[in-house]
């Protein structure tokens, strides 16, 4: 008890001194960004004992940047000045499961672990300490994660990690389409007089007509992405056509909250039959089933593909190439892809992600950690509004500006300055995603978007004249406005609900992948007359899976998630 109290005092002192050491540092960049928050003025009166410098090790299960000491970056240096804490970040290089396995077996952990998909393995091994008490002591973490604490509890009621992001403030949609959409070349829409397309049938009709009209151009009507784990870009489509967001393998009914898989439904049958029909007509590219990701991107950027379904983030490199060409030569705008929300019946689409809380990823403090209190204090400091602005927008006057209405924006020079080396040296890359933070769709207290890319002012500066024209034709200001607003789904994303290692649910998903990967090409490439026969074979093969058990498990999890969110 005494010990606990002592810790509590220590933590309080830590936070206090951390905040004050920052204000003492005159040339500190962070303090210039937002100098009038309450925390700041309070701490100014505190005593000024400089903190011991300490370095913690941090293992990150994603290889998204070179290894670094956080204090070698501008952001990390400022945070070190505030807290005295530096992190030595090691990124994964090889196989995650092997790395995590050896870590567990040797019972020797880095101080902080963010193991990506290895999280259940580590929780299962008892590698993390319980954060429940520490969260209570850290006001900023409490503020951001407070509404989600129930959802963060493991089966034993303890909290072992902080999911990477939590929604704060109003929901700002991504003005670009990073999520699923049916894409089509702009010239198709131009030629057809910018029709309002709502259903898949209208969409494929448009493609067929266009290909027929341009016979000599050697066009491909439609391709899909199937390579390796990216297969879901093809198999998820029926879910979206049914009017559901990407919940993974299930559609969750909005009234009964029953989770149902869709792999054997009429929707999937219709989608595959549609591809089968297009294949028979020579509109669909049958190489879709053997092409690798590079080949897929090459086709998308070849200007020969009229339409495709994919998630924005997955096709971005190819589409950006076309956008870039169009920026230099407006004539090329014809080949830029335009996103459309489609459903079977033209009803409400749900392609945009609802505000979600991804629960099966996160960052935790290991049982080997030298000083958990101080690590939490660092995160608490990071969660302060001014530091969230700092790590997201940077330094006022250097990486962003504020107009007279208090809106943040970036000048052309600033945008130009922020290239890859700058991202690394400033630390935007390192503090972009791998720490506790506000969710991407969050809003700051002053109404600005938390993420620069989501700020309408920033988005507008990126648009070309041709972009503006086509958006105008469809009566919208951003691409996101083409899509229906997402409904609230407390469990979203359902694929983010943790599943135990080697559980029946995981085995179901693995086997489902294999069956669908094997049968979808057969169904699509079959002679149209044989389609029903192959479909029956597929149903037989799929019937061997315990789908009812999987759905039951998911329904329980979803109901629990709704309970926890209340």
């Amino acid at each position, binding site marked *: 008890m005494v010990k606990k109290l002592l810790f509590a005092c220590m933590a309080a002192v830590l936070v206090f001194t951390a905040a004050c050491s920052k204000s003492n540092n005159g040339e500190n960049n962070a303090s210039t960004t937002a100098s009038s928050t309450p925390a700041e003025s309070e701490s100014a009166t505190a005593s000024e004992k400089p903190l011991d410098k300490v370095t913690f090790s941090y293992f990150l299960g994603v290889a998204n940047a070179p290894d670094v000491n956080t204090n070698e970056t501008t952001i990390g240096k400022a945070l070190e000045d505030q807290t005295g804490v530096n992190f030595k970040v090691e990124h994964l290089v*090889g196989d995650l499961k092997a790395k995590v396995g050896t870590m567990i077996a040797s019972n020797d952990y880095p101080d902080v672990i963010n193991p990506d998909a290895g999280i259940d393995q580590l929780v299962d091994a008892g590698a993390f300490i319980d954060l429940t008490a520490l969260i209570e002591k850290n006001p900023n973490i409490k503020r951001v994660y407070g509404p989600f604490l129930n959802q963060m509890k493991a089966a034993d009621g303890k909290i072992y990690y902080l999911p990477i992001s939590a929604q704060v403030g109003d929901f700002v949609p991504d003005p670009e389409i990073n999520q699923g959409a049916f894409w089509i070349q702009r010239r198709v829409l131009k030629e057809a007089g910018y029709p309002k397309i709502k259903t898949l049938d209208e969409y494929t009709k448009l493609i067929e007509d266009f290909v027929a009209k341009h016979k000599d151009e050697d066009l491909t009507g439609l391709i899909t992405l199937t390579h390796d784990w990216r297969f879901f870009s093809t198999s998820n489509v029926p879910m979206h056509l049914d009017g559901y967001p990407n919940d993974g393998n299930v559609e969750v009914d909005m009234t009964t909250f029953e989770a149902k898989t869709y792999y054997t439904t009429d929707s999937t049958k219709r989608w595959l039959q549609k591809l089968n029909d297009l294949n028979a007509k020579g509109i669909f590219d049958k190489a879709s089933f053997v092409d690798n990701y590079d080949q897929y991107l090459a086709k998308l950027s070849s200007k020969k593909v009229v339409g495709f379904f994919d998630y924005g983030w997955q096709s971005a490199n190819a589409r950006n190439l076309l956008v870039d060409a169009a920026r230099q030569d407006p004539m090329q705008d014809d080949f830029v892809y335009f996103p459309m929300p489609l459903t079977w019946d033209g009803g409400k689409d749900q392609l945009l992600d609802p505000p979600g809380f991804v629960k099966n990823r996160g960052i935790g403090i290991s049982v080997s950690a030298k000083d958990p209190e101080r690590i939490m204090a660092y995160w608490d400091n990071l969660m302060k509004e001014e530091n969230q602005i700092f790590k997201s927008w940077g330094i006022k006057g250097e990486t962003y500006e504020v107009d007279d209405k208090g809106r943040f924006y970036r000048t052309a020079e600033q945008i130009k300055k922020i290239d890859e080396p700058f991202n690394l040296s400033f630390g935007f890359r390192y503090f972009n995603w791998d720490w506790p933070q506000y969710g991407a769709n969050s809003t700051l207290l002053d109404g600005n978007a938390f993420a620069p890319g989501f700020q309408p002012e920033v988005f507008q500066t990126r648009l070309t004249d041709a972009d503006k024209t086509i958006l105008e034709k469809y009566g919208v200001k951003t691409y996101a406005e083409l899509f229906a607003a997402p409904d609230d789904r407390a469990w979203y994303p359902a694929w983010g609900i943790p599943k135990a290692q080697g559980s029946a649910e995981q085995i179901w998903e693995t086997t489902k992948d294999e069956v669908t990967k094997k049968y979808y090409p057969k169904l699509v490439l079959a002679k149209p007359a044989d389609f029903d026969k192959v479909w029956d074979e597929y149903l037989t093969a799929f019937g061997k899976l315990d789908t009812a058990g999987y759905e039951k498990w998911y329904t329980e999890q979803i109901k629990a998630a709704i309970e926890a969110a209340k």
Partner: protein
Amino acid sequence: MANIATGTALKKLTRRNASIGDRIFDTLNITFLCLLMIVTLYPFLNTLALSLNRAMDSIRGGIYIWPRDFSIENYKFVFNQSTIFHATLISVLRLVIGSITTVFCSAMVAYTISRQDFVLRKFITIAFVLTAYVNPGLIPNYLNIRDLGLIDSFWVYIWPGLIGVFNLILIRSFIDGLPESILESGRIDGAGEFRTFFNIVLPLCLPVLATVALFTAVYQWNSWLDVFLYNSSNINLSTLQYELQKILQNSSAASSAASAFSNPDAAANAVTPLAVRSTMTIVASVPMIVMYPFLQKYFVKGMTVGGVKG
């Protein structure tokens, strides 16, 4: 042997035919080898072209043996990571030390098990050969290395791979093939086992030792799994291949970050995994390819037996 009876007439005939046949054979042989070279050179040229092409442009595909949009950005990206220079040094060190120890130790054991009269011969041979087919699994291996105190140590690159079964058996079968008379003559001279090994066996086995040295060098140069498992948190022990793997894995994040920050110039010059993979292939393989011709002189036909004095 039956031909001997048919006598000189046939001999003359074959010889005359041989010269024409020879020429046809040579022409066909050279033609075939040239075709083979085209097939095996192409992937390398393709990789080189991709490494010298602007990464974003390469996404479009259609690069064969010549870059379309020349750029050295990919090499800049790779060499900008200052860690790779020290890592190259470690790679060279493990290559040199690893090759020397492996060649020497393998040859020594191979010599003992080539001795037909050695009492432990069969036991040692089987004990070694079986290890080629058993694998304890990732985690037991890791724990074993840890218990041997080799985590976070340079020697973890040398010890576990000291003697490979394949190399051992290869050397043994070469020693087996040496004329018995040469070995005998050494022993009659009263040379001890060590002297026989050093003065007779090693020089006679140069071609196979060069082969084993090459295999080991390439193995040492290319491995990064041991760095990953045992030394990943010590940058001072990192190797070139491991650093290149890091760079490769960063590159996909780099390309998506470039588009996320909406900077057209940065996006146009961003790297992609495809481009970085090509570049690192060139960076890592050129030293190995350059090394090969130097070892080839040990494979020259017939140099060994004649070159050693009995």
